[in-house]
C-alpha cells in the first residue's frame, strides 16, 4: 500500500481512470463504436447501423478475411514449427548465441525493411516469388519465427531437463523422449506462441504492404485502402471483424492449451 488516506486514494484512482480510460482504452472503444455508427459529428456517434459491418463481410472485404486467415495459418504455424525447432536445438548448444541473434534479427529490423528485402531478393533469379501469395506468407513466417523462438526459448529456461534425462536413462530413444517428454512439457509455450503468431499475423501491415500482390490482399491492407479512400466507417467495421476473428482464434488456441495441460 502506497497511499493511505481515503482522499489520497480517491484522487489517485480518478487520475488512473482518466489516464487509462482516455489514453489507452478510448481509442479501441472508438473504433468499435464507429463500426456501428451511421455518422459521427458530435461527441457521441449517431444513426446506429449494421450496414458497415454487412459491407465489411461481403465481396472483396470478405475475400480479405479469408486471405488473412490463410496467411496467418500457413505463415504463423510454420513459424511456430521453425521457432520451436530452433529454440530446442539451440538450447545449451555451442551455437546458442548465434542462433539467438539470428532468430531475433527480424524483430530488430523494421518490418518494412524485411518486406523490402524479400521484394529485392525474390524479384530475381533463382527464385521468383514477387507477385505470388507465397511472398506474403514468407514475410509473415519470417516475422513470427522471432516471436515463437522467444516464447519457447523462455519456457525452456523454466523446464527441468532431468525429466528428459530420466526418460533417456530408462531406455527411451531420442525420438521417443522428444515426442513423449520434451514436446509435451513445452506444449503450453508452443500453444501460446501459436496464439501470439496468429494474432500478430492477422494485424501485420508493414511487411505485407511492401510485398502483397493485388490478388492477395490481407485484412489490414484492405482496411488501409478503405481509409485512404475516405471510407473510414467501413474501415472501422472491418477492423472490428479483424479484432473479433483474432480474439476467437486466440481463445480457441488457448482452449487447446488448457485441454493439453489437463490430460
Amino acid at each position, binding site marked *: *500500500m502506497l497511499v493511505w488516506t481515503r482522499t489520497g486514494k480517491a484522487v489517485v484512482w480518478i487520475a488512473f481512470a482518466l489516464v487509462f480510460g482516455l489514453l489507452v482504452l478510448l481509442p479501441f472503444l472508438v473504433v468499435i463504436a464507429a463500426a456501428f455508427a451511421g455518422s459521427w459529428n458530435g461527441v457521441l456517434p449517431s444513426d446506429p447501423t449494421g450496414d458497415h459491418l454487412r459491407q465489411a463481410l461481403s465481396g472483396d472485404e470478405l475475400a480479405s478475411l479469408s486471405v488473412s486467415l490463410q496467411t496467418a495459418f500457413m505463415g504463423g504455424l510454420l513459424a511456430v514449427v521453425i521457432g520451436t525447432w530452433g529454440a530446442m536445438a539451440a538450447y545449451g548448444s555451442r551455437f546458442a548465441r548465434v542462433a539467438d541473434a539470428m532468430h531475433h534479427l527480424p524483430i530488430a529490423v523494421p518490418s518494412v525493411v524485411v518486406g*523490402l528485402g524479400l521484394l529485392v531478393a525474390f524479384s530475381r533469379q533463382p527464385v521468383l516469388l514477387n507477385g505470388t501469395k507465397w511472398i506474403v506468407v514468407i514475410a509473415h513466417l519470417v516475422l513470427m519465427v522471432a516471436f515463437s523462438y522467444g516464447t519457447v526459448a523462455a519456457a525452456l529456461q523454466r523446464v527441468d531437463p532431468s525429466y528428459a534425462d530420466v526418460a533417456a536413462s530408462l531406455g527411451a530413444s531420442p525420438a521417443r523422449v522428444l515426442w513423449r517428454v520434451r514436446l509435451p512439457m513445452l506444449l503450453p509455450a508452443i500453444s501460446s506462441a501459436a496464439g501470439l503468431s496468429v494474432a500478430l499475423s492477422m494485424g501485420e501491415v508493414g511487411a505485407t504492404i511492401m510485398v502483397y500482390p493485388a490478388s492477395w490482399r490481407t485484412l489490414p491492407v484492405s482496411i488501409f485502402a478503405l481509409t485512404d479512400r475516405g471510407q473510414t466507417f467501413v474501415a472501422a467495421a472491418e477492423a472490428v471483424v479483424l479484432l473479433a476473428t483474432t480474439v476467437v482464434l486466440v481463445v480457441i488456441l488457448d482452449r487447446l492449451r488448457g485441454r493439453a495441460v489437463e490430460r
Partner: protein
Amino acid sequence: MAVEALGATVVVSSQRRRDGKWLWVLPPLLVIAVLVVYPLVLVAIESIPAWGDVVGSAEFRDALVRTVQIAVSSTVGCLIVGTFLAVVISFVPFPGARVVAGLVDTMLALPSFLVALSFTFIYGTTGILRAGGFLTSPWAVVLAEVTFYTPFVMRPLLAAMSRLPQAQLDVAASLGAGPWRVLRQVVLPEVRPALVAGGSLTLLLTLNEFGIVLFLGAKGTTTLPMLVHTKGIVMFDYPGACVIAVVQIALSLGLYAVLRMALGGRRARLD
C-alpha cells in the same frame, strides 16, 4: 580392462550425441539465412549506387530527425504513463485492477494501426474534437504511439512490482516516509531493470513503427520506415529505398546492441 573399455564407449557415445546435436540447429538457421540474411545482404548491395543522392537530400535528413524525435518523445511518454499506471495497479489496488492488468496483456497483440484509425474519429475534421490540424502533425503520431506502446512498458513493470515485498513499502511508510519518498527511494530503484528493459524495447519498436504513421496519412510526417515504403512501392526507386533501409537497420541494430550491452546481456523482449 573391460571397465575401461566400457568407460571409453560411454564417453564416445555421449560425445557423438553432443556432436550430432548442433547439427539440429542448422535447418532453422538455414531458413533464416535464406529468408532474412540473404535479402538484407542484397539490400545492402543494391543500395551502393544511390548513397550520394539520398544522404544529401533534405527529405532524408528531415525523416531521420523526425524518426528519432518521434521515437524518443514516445518512449519518454510511455515511461511516464506506464510507470504511473503500473504503480497504481500494484500499490494502490482497486477492485478490478487484475482485469485491467489482463487487458494490458491483450493489447500487446493488437495491431497498432487501430489507434491511428480511431484518431481520425477523435481528432478528424468531423470528429469528436474537430482538431483537424493536430491529426497531420507529428504530435498525433507521438500520442498514438504512447497509447499503443504504454502496455509494453507496463508489462515488465507489473511483473517486477509483483515480486517486490509489500512489507518493504509498509516499513518505509511506518518509518515516516511519504508516498513520494517511498516511490522514489524504495519502489523505483527496485524496478529499474524492468524500466530499462521496457523502455529500450519501446524505443526500438517506436523507431521501427510503420502502421501508425501510414494510417495517419504521412502528409506532414515522414519517418524512415515510411520513406522506405514511399520510395520502394510508390516511386519504384529500389536503390533509394535500400539506402534508407540500411540506415534504418544500422540505427535499430546499433541501438539494440548498445542496449543489450548496457543491460548486461539481458534480452529486452516481449515476454
